[in-house]
């Protein structure tokens, strides 16, 4: 018997219309755990670097995390992996909700999609019975609408449905996959789903997920709940409310938006409004939010309430995730009511809540600068908010200028030309980042923004406070119960942190270690399917490096200790780097936007990357050395990189890379 996992993957070939059930090798679980780890292994093995994101041979993998469906609180994540039409690198996005546990209960760990269907279809997985069904009647339907229609059609109100909207069908490079209150949004994976002609995957399962050592595992899970309850009663002192608790930021219940509105940049990641938040705004926004949020809701088996059911007189009820509440609001320099209004519509079209508002604000800047004119935007409204709605409609339909904007800021800027490139000031590796523009370079964040394999900072950062505590007493109190640190040494980071010591604090060496800790925890979560909101993201989470090995061992029956788990996370992290290196990613791609900090330190930045690469066992181009790969049992990857001559190539120069030779995927079917 297999424990925690089912040991079966579904292999779907949409070109041939074939459905196969494949038993998986338990050895792969020992090496990569599951979720993102095993997804990466499959992508390495089966998708050669020459394959383009919209080629039929690109795979789209939906994976339940290793612990999804077990009683471990918050273990509910679906990890979707493919190659991104936007970044041309490995795309990886995860969603909470209810889909992954349902897949496990149906008897599968992963659904691996290859090929392309000639007409729009959806997949119906009902325990052992799996069928590819016609979806022509669902063409153009919204995500929520599709979910409802499929459940009615199948007469299965308990089915869980992951679906794309119009944006995915039209291969918008930032199209999402939506599932109830959750979505996998980053990297344009919805566009790949649309390109494959797959509208949705509905799943229903009524089988058992087994646990190897039940009684002990149950005790651990109960402990997590007790810890969560305790943290709810005792928020962390001395940090902003948004950072004091667990979960994703509790955006649906927290009213105090001082921190986001002052720290994040408005418009096209352009303006800091440090004085925006005042009593009057607070009162106004509180009223708007209390009226809009009807109920706080959760993902499967998780007590945190990161989502909300939203009612708005102009919209059908919808479910909102944490932060999309403010992304549209701030991009449009508008208010919260606008945010609730447009987010509901955008979600129905199925687009990423981070990228979409930025692309629209970017277009608006180009218009104001005269780079885009009325000729490019016929019928462009004069009202600010109306403009955002107008742009959204154009983008999801790829109509007119929307066809260009649908590829994101990086590609749109290059297609539009006429100086538009200068307005692309918030992308890394061709992907829109969280709109943050700060003062002085932070060495930890410099490394993370530059080298993060997941393209998105919230999937890399976590665990550590964002600002120093002012007094010795506060610092000592903070570290007194900081059991989550890998070892005592990490406490020094907080104990010795004085205000205004950036960029020289912490040292480069300490920064490397802090980055590794943060990203290691994320890579563990992405394999287990435990939500980052209870593990790698917040300060002092219930899951940490000292108890996760027990969770995994007791659930699966494998014998995993801390060192082994750290090694697995390093293996997964390094394999993903090898995949991207094989796709052409090099040191030159690893840099935050120029205006990310006002005060930059070029020499130090070089050293930060040099030292971090060395620390990770990568060469000076950021390529894992053969020895490093061998040590992580990834010798096959080292051999491949060697055979391709990647270790021998000369340094890629800026001028060469910035030439217009790079091609977007284009939008022709």
């Amino acid at each position, binding site marked *: 018997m297999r424990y925690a996992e089912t040991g079966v993957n579904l292999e779907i070939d949409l070109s041939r219309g074939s459905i196969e059930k494949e038993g998986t090798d338990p050895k792969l679980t020992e090496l990569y755990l599951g979720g993102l780890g095993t997804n990466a292994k499959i992508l390495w093995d089966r998708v050669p670097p020459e394959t383009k994101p919209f080629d039929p041979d690109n795979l789209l993998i939906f994976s339940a995390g290793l612990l999804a469906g077990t009683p471990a609180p918050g273990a509910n994540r679906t990890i979707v992996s493919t190659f991104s039409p936007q970044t041309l690198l490995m795309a990886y996005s995860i969603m909470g909700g209810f889909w992954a546990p349902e897949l496990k*209960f149906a008897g599968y760990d992963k659904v691996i999609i290859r090929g392309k269907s000639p007409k729009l279809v959806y997949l119906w997985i009902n325990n052992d019975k799996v069928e590819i069904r016609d979806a022509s009647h669902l063409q153009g339907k919204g995500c929520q609408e599709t979910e409802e229609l499929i459940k009615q059609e199948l007469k299965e109100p308990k089915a869980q449905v992951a679906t794309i909207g119009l944006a995915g069908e039209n291969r918008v490079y930032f199209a999402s996959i939506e599932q109830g209150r959750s979505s996998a949004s980053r990297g344009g994976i919805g566009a790949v789903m649309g390109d494959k002609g797959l509208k949705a995957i509905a799943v229903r399962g*009524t089988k058992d997920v087994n646990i190897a050592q*039940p*009684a002990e595992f149950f005790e651990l899970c109960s402990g997590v*709940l007790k810890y969560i309850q305790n943290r709810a009663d005792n928020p962390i002192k001395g940090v902003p409310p948004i950072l004091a608790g667990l979960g994703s930021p509790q955006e649906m219940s927290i009213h105090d938006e001082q921190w986001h509105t002052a720290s994040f940049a408005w418009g096209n990641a352009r303006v800091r409004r440090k004085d925006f938040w005042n009593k009057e705004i607070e009162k106004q926004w509180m009223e708007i939010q209390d009226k809009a949020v009807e109920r706080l809701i*959760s993902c499967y*088996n*998780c007590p945190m309430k990161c989502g909300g059911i939203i009612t708005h007189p102009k919209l059908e009820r919808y479910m909102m995730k944490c932060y999309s509440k403010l992304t549209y609001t701030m991009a449009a320099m508008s208010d919260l009511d606008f945010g609730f209004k447009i987010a509901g519509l955008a979600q129905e079209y199925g687009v990423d809540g981070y990228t979409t508002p930025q692309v629209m604000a970017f277009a608006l800047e180009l218009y104001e600068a005269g780079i885009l004119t009325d000729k490019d935007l016929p019928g462009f409204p004069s009202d600010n908010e109306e403009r955002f709605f107008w742009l959204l409609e154009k983008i999801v339909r790829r109509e007119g200028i929307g066809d260009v904007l649908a590829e994101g800021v990086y590609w749109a800027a290059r297609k539009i030309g006429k100086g538009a490139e200068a307005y692309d000031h918030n992308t890394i590796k061709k992907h829109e980042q969280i709109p943050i523009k700060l003062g002085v370079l932070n060495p930890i964040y410099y490394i993370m923004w530059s080298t993060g394999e997941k393209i998105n900072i919230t999937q890399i950062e976590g665990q550590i406070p964002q600002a120093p505590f002012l007094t010795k007493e506060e610092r000592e109190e903070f570290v007194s119960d900081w059991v989550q640190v890998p070892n005592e040494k990490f406490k020094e980071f907080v104990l010795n942190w004085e205000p205004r010591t950036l960029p020289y604090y912490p040292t480069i060496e300490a920064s490397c270690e802090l980055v590794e800790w943060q990203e290691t925890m994320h890579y563990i979560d992405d394999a287990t399917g435990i939500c980052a909101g209870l593990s790698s993201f917040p300060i002092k989470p219930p899951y940490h490096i000292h108890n996760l090995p027990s969770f995994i061992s007791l659930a699966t029956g494998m014998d995993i200790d801390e060192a082994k788990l750290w090694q697995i996370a390093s293996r997964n992290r390094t394999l993903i780097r090898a995949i991207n290196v094989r796709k052409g990613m090099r040191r030159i791609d690893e840099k935050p936007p120029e205006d990310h900090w006002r005060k930059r330190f070029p020499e130090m930045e070089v050293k930060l990357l040099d030292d971090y690469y060395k620390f990770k066992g990568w060469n000076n181009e950021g390529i894992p050395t053969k020895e490093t790969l061998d040590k992580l049992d990834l010798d096959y990857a080292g051999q491949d990189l060697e055979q391709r001559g990647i270790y021998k190539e000369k340094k890629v120069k800026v001028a060469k890379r910035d030439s217009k030779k790079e091609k977007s995927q284009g939008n022709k079917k």
Partner: protein
Amino acid sequence: MKKIKVIKIDVDKCNGCRACEAICSAFHAEPKYSSTNPEKSRIRVLFDPLRDIYVPVLAGEYTEAECNGRDTYTIDGKVYDECSFCRASCPSRNLFKDPDSGLPLKCDMCEAEPPLPEPLCVQWCLSDALTYEEREEEGEEEERPNEMEIGLEVLVKKYGAEKVMDTLARVSKG
């Protein structure tokens, strides 16, 4: 005095996470906690987020026949479907039946030796949509006649013992 065990359900507080289903099915697995499967849970959250309807329902008695008519409830303008609040394991719906054997499932308040302080669904509901209460009521903790006894008693009163026995003999031959 007899002890009454009550699980109080506050539908306004339910966040729809279904932790109650997960842990109920784990508790009732054999061996205990060895598997999870919400379909085997004796509590289900009937929910429909787009109508903001969340109703945790505990499995009650098995019933052979479905109701002749159905009801809907409208509460605060929200229409709750027929059967929303019904606890029966009944032929009209696929609820509270073991997916493997088809046998009815019934909440036993997590009977265990030593007894749990509260049923597990309550312990795992940090939203307090489920809370537990024990209260004493007047009257003896009496041995209740089982269902068949109740049924037979009714028939004997109505038709007389002889007729019931004759009929019983006849139908049990077939």
